[in-house]
Each structure stands twice: as structure tokens, then as C-alpha cells.
């Protein structure tokens, strides 16, 4: 690999690292706010994680989650934060597609698109 392309790669990697960190902090902030609201509401109830129920439907569909989060429902707000967290590595893959395209590396544009497709499948499959 040439010096110049190595430099480009390195710059991009640093950028990706910062993106991932921003994504993490953003999602953590949302989770934290949601968490505080959640504790205020449920603090005195006994935790019930010993039995698996499958998730109640309020946190299963994305549109409901977003709506619930903006209405101030704590569980949905935490869930929104978690969704943002999951989307952080996905956005990293998306940006990598663009970067490989800029470098005209079509082999890796294809490879990265394949990874992106797998990720999206995982997110939408029921």
C-alpha cells in the first residue's frame, strides 16, 4: 500500500474511533436519563428478573419506542438509548462503505455492503 493511502486509512480510522465514541456517549446519556426516570418510578418495586416473560410489547416495535420515549416513558427512553447504541457500529460500517468508495476499492465496497446487509437483516428480522 502506498504511503498516501496508508495515511488516508489512518485518518479515517481516527475519525471512526471518534464517531464510535460520540455514538456511545450519546446513547449512554439517553440511557442514563431514562434510567433515572425509571428509578424514580420503580424504585420500590421488587425486581423480577428470575422469570423470563419475553418483552412486553411496549418495547418491541421501534415506532412505539420512539413515541414512548418522547412522551417521557422511562423504559422506552432507555430502549431508545439502547437502539442508538446498537446503531453506532452500524453507522461505522456505513461510513466505511463511503470511505472505501472514495478510495475506489470496489472489492471492499462490496464486502462492507455485505456486512451492512447482514446487520440490517439482523435488525429487521422478526
Amino acid at each position, binding site marked *: *500500500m502506498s504511503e498516501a493511502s*496508508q495515511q488516508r*486509512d*489512518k485518518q479515517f*480510522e*481516527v475519525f*471512526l*474511533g*471518534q464517531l*464510535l*465514541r460520540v*455514538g*456511545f456517549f450519546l*446513547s*449512554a446519556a439517553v*440511557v442514563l436519563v*431514562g*434510567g433515572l426516570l*425509571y*428509578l424514580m418510578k*420503580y*424504585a*420500590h418495586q*421488587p*425486581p423480577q*428478573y*428470575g*422469570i*423470563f416473560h*419475553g*418483552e*412486553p410489547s411496549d*418495547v*418491541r416495535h421501534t415506532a412505539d419506542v420512539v413515541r414512548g420515549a418522547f412522551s417521557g416513558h*422511562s*423504559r*422506552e427512553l*432507555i*430502549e431508545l438509548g*439502547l*437502539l442508538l*447504541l*446498537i446503531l*453506532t*457500529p*452500524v453507522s*461505522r*460500517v456505513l461510513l*466505511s462503505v463511503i470511505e472505501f468508495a472514495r478510495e475506489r476499492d470496489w*472489492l*471492499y465496497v462490496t*464486502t462492507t455492503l455485505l*456486512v451492512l446487509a*447482514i*446487520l440490517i*437483516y*439482523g*435488525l429487521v*428480522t*422478526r
Partner: protein
Amino acid sequence: MHLTTLGFTLLVALGSLLAGLLGSLTGLGGGVVIVPLLTLLFHVDIRYAIGASLVSVIATSSGAAAAYLREGYSNMRVGMFLEVATTVGALCGAFLATRIPTAAIAIIFGVVLLYSAWTSIKPIPDVSGGEPVDHLAELLKLNGSYPTPEGEQEYHVRNVPAGFSLMYVAGLLSGLLGIGSGAVKVLAMDRAMHIPFKVSTTTSNFMIGVTAAASAGIYLHRGYIDPGLSMPVMLGVACGALLGARILPGARVRTLRLVFGAAIAAIAIEMIFKGIGGKI
């Protein structure tokens, strides 16, 4: 034990913080400790535990990524190419998790934990350096170099199909158990593909988040990720890992790895016994 949600949440957060701290100091990752912590100590159903653990894996991978990518060790192409294998593996693992009995998950978890303990106590020697060129690696543009005090050091990647297959297994375990599978990823890259250790570890850490994200959707839709539980785990592990990164330079890693390795070996055996006994 009569705990309120508040007490439970705080204790889980504290436990997760310790897990994240030890995980980052020993290089083992917090993921492997979270599931046993939640199932054995807090009596949480293992499905909620692996959901919360997976979330924490994505959190630490993303939060720490800047540190790994800064130095120029990781190889983006190797990572992306192998992510095809890990993400497919992760999907398979997640689907498998929804189909096999929870006791089986516990037993497999225990076995994987034993392997982690083993590698913690007995580190894998670096086998890279001075390799002839492998045509498949060349074709896939996987070869690269990393910075050393003497300048850029080139390395050549070998055994691509073997590495790819091992990565599939790493992804499978990640999706099945809610862990990062960093140890298997490093194994695949360092030993099978002869990629230098520092390149393997940084690239692996970079890949862990993507692998976990692949199975996260499936976990979400099946209700494995509970917001109330994932919240303290995610925040606790992240804080622990950040703290660990701060104090790492002064830490006695070798001693920690031995002690931690012994501790998780014990935990691993308990997981296996509980699984066999049908108590998980």
C-alpha cells in the same frame, strides 16, 4: 433476599463496574463475567443476562474504539473481511440461543469461560513475522504493516479460510452467549492467520461491536434485552472499563490475569454444574 428495584439496580451497577474494570485490566473483557454475575449471584434468568451482557459488549467496544484506532495498529480490511464471517455467525448464534434449552447455554458458557481462563493464565505466544506471501491474502488486500520504533513493519496474512472459519465460530459464540469473543477473534487472527498480536487485538476490539450489533436485533425482538436490567449493566461496565483504561499503565497485569483467570475458572465450573443440574 428482599431487594427493591433501586437496591438491585445499584448492586448490579456496582458489580458491572467491577466486571468492566477487571475485564479491561486483564484484557478479557467484561462480557464473560456479566452473565455469571447476573445468573449466579442475582438469580436473573440467563436470557435477560445474555441480553444485558451483549449490550455492555457493544458499549465497551464503541466507547473504547477511539483508543484502539488512534495508534494505527488495526487493519480495516482484515476486520471488514472477517466481519462477514462474524456477523453471519452472530445471527446463527442468536437464533440458536432462542431455540436451545437455557441449561445448554449455561454449559456452553461455562466451557467457553474455562477457555478464557486458560488463555488468561497461559498467554498465547505470537507466531507472526517473516512469512512468505499468501496469494489469497494478497488478492483480498489483507496484508499490511504496523508502526514500530524502527519504522513500519510489514506482515503477511496466511491461512485465510481457517481464519474466516474461526471467525464464524467467534461470531456464533458472541450471538449465543452475549459475549465479545475477543479471545477467539485474537486466536483466529494471531495464531491461524499469523497477524501480529497488537494488530490482532486492536482489530478484534474494533470488530467486537459490529459482531454484537448483528445479534442485538434478534435479542431485542425476542425480549432478551430488558431496559431496566441493561441500563445499570451498560453504564456500570462502561464506567469500569474507562476506569480500567486509566489505571492500566500502573497495574500489575500478570498478577491480575492469574487471579482473574483462577476466579473465572471457578465460576465456569459452577455455571457448568448449575446447567447440568437444570438450575439455570
